[in-house]
């Protein structure tokens, strides 16, 4: 077959299909999302039945895949690093209980972080959970490791983790696809309550077996660290790296003309780290530089007296190990001339909600109605409501509702409660918002919850949400609507409104506030409903005006700063606002923002 230019995530998807994976589940999250998306796009290449689902959250995704593995089939579950926190409960127990058909948990880490609420290291999670983890250095290796991981998983009947990072997931490389394996397995669940339903009585024995397996896995020949030996000119000195840091190191060594001068090790499996490797490093080297993202996982297990790494602070403990940072670290370690001061962080222009985004209209109204309000929000595009001053907290999936309740109870003790407006996206609501809503209702919190319903998981590129009635791959399925869920949770104030209708939306916000303060009041829910404008169908179905700014404009900047539509900017002298017609979608939501009615709309000819 010919080479294809594949993104790391597509390469992993290819690997899954080629390895005969029959059940693939995921919850979307950057940088992991394109893995399941590519499985969907490539499902025609599978030679056996392949079941795919976008699950409602990572815990559910994990459990669906797990049971499929009990039947003897190969399965995979995909998530981002913080998704593993959500799936932690089943993940931890699976280490003891094990699996039957190969089970692969693909967890994409985000050192930096680029698009996450932290930069936790899944390899350290695996050390705690006692789960083997593979750390690929390139998209091609990530693909190859899929089948390695399935074989390992089946040999030891254990769940195995593949941990790519953002730089693997979102890199492209030319890769040769191969033909998929035909495993011809039929579902065959062998009942064994002492294992699949193991009570505490059986767990010490299962734990013992796990420990014995880990000892064997650590010395698996195919998973031993790989050495590119130096010529001895840097005696008793070694460089040890894993993941993308290893690839950066290889290029750096080449640039510096140090090829085959110093011993260079690639660690394929950071946990369990090979005891043979540990012994050899202790015996044969006095100084060892360890480069890994993000936490010192290899370093901790190596416990080498001459180790130079994150624990001593020679290698930065936070952020990515970029080629520039690695240059400094390696130069310091090998006593080379240090590179010039590396430029600071390359952040550049901050992102903002898209032109015409319905969330912007909703946030603007919220801020207008309650200038002194407290605004807990959540994970998604709408985090960018921060730019409008309408997002005060962002924590983890679904936290905003519970945080809103927490704020209420703390203020309520003192008598004077500010208006608390929680904003949560539709996908996040289904993921983890429902238990928090029920809790807020029964604990009698008096808060407004605005569910930002744009009928998609916009942040990650538009995966279906339960109330759309669409399954992975676009097939129709049952829709689970938001309104009955909210009502069944005991909410008595429930309204739905398009935030493009500023007057109606603000009227409802004021009513909701009054309700929360009335004697019989409680949680008020307002569903802000307007499709995501990234969705072409939405864009086509809504009216688009020619929006311009006339010379009534007094240059107050309100539309640019407070409303911050990226299609609005000040002219070169800063005297007047302008509409960038390349970016404006003609939604007209900016019109009411202008205090002097200088923004006007006309029908497009």
């Amino acid at each position, binding site marked *: 077959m010919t080479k294809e230019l594949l993104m790391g995530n597509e390469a992993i998807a290819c690997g899954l299909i080629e390895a005969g994976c029959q059940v693939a589940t995921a919850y979307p999250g950057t940088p992991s999302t394109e893995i399941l998306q590519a499985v969907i796009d490539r499902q025609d290449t599978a030679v056996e039945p392949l079941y795919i689902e976008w699950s409602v959250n990572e815990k559910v995704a994990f459990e669906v895949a797990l049971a499929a593995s009990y039947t003897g089939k190969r399965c995979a579950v995909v998530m981002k690093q913080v998704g593993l926190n959500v799936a932690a409960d089943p993940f931890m127990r699976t280490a003891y209980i094990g699996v039957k058909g190969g089970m692969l948990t693909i967890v994409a880490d985000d050192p930096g972080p680029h698009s996450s609420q932290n930069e936790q290291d899944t390899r350290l999670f695996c050390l705690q959970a006692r789960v083997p983890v593979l750390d690929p250095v390139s998209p091609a290796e990530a693909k190859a490791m899929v089948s390695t991981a399935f074989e390992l998983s089946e040999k030891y009947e254990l769940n195995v983790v593949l941990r790519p990072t953002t730089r693997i997931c979102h890199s*492209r490389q030319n890769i040769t696809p191969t033909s998929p394996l035909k495993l011809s397995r039929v579902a065959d669940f062998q009942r064994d309550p002492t294992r699949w339903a193991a009570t505490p009585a059986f767990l010490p024995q299962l734990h013992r077996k796990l420990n014995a397996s880990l000892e064997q896995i650590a010395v698996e020949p195919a998973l031993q660290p790989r050495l590119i030996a130096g010529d001895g000119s840097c005696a008793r000195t070694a460089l040890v790296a894993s993941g993308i840091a290893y690839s950066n190191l*290889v290029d750096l060594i080449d640039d510096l003309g140090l090829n085959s001068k110093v011993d260079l090790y690639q660690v394929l499996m950071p946990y369990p780290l090979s005891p043979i490797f540990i012994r050899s490093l202790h015996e044969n080297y006095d100084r060892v530089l360890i480069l890994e993202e993000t936490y010192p996982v290899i370093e901790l297990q190596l416990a080498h007296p001459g180790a130079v790494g994150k624990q001593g602070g020679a290698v930065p403990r936070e952020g990515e190990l970029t080629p520039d940072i690695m240059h400094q670290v390696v130069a310091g370690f090998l006593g080379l001339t240090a590179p010039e001061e590396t430029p600071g962080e*390359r952040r550049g222009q901050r992102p903002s909600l898209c032109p015409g985004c319905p969330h912007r209209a909703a946030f603007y109204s919220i801020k207008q109605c309650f200038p002194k309000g407290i605004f807990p929000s959540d994970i998604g595009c709408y985090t960018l409501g921060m730019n409008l001053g309408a997002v005060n907290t962002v924590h983890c999936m679904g936290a905003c509702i519970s945080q809103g309740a927490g704020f209420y109870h703390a203020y309520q003790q003192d008598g004077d409660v500010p208006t608390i407006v929680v904003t949560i996206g539709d996908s996040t609501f289904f993921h983890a918002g429902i238990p928090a809503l029920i809790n807020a209702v029964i604990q009698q919190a008096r808060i407004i919850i605005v569910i930002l319903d744009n009928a998609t998981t916009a*942040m990650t590129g538009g995966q279906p949400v339960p109330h759309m009635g669409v399954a992975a791959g676009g097939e129709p399925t049952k829709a689970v609507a938001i309104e009955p869920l909210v009502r069944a949770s005991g909410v008595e104030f429930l309204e739905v409104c398009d935030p493009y209708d500023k007057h109606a939306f603000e009227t409802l916000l004021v009513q909701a506030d009054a309700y929360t303060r009335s004697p019989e009041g409680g949680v008020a829910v307002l569903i802000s409903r307007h499709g995501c404008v990234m969705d072409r169908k939405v864009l086509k179905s809504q009216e688009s005006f020619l929006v311009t700014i006339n010379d009534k404009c007094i240059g107050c900047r309100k539309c640019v700063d407070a409303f911050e539509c990226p299609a609005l900017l000040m002219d070169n002298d800063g005297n007047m606002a302008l509409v960038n017609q390349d970016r404006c979608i003609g939604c007209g939501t900016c019109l009411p923002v202008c205090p002097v009615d200088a923004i006007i709309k006309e029908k497009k000819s």
Partner: protein
Amino acid sequence: MKQQIIVSGIGGQGVLFLTRVIAQAAVNRGMPVLTAETHGMAQRGGTVLSTVKVGDFASPLIRSGQADVGLLLWEANLQVHASLLKNSGVLLINSDTAEEGERIDASAIARDLGNAVLSNLVLLGLAVRRQALFCSAEECEAAIRQLAPAKFVEQNLAAFHKGLGSGNPDSLADS
């Protein structure tokens, strides 16, 4: 043959597509290629950077002062990304003002063609015209045909050809 290229812009400008076209040209030639891209939150109008490394490399990332070519779709990114370029690196910028580097008002040209996002291919055309890239005009055309959605192929090629044939007046003369 080794070449390190950066493509810089803001979310929504077609940085990813331009990156893929360049990488595809390398694939078609049978050369090893690695790219790194920005996805996620920054794609909502924030600064995005792609890197492309053609030839024998292990990592897709580029160290400061190592890039041979810089394609900047957003002039303001000069501050954040220019330091990636070698002293001898070639810098091509989409801009309507005349300052450092080779500039072209790619957005205006693209707007004339009906869509400002086509500025990405206008800039690619200029880069090829300046012989800044490892690949030829024909190779870029082939990659564009492969990657663009069928109904946009002609429009994309038109944008590429505009860049290929424009630039400063003396280059227009010999096109």
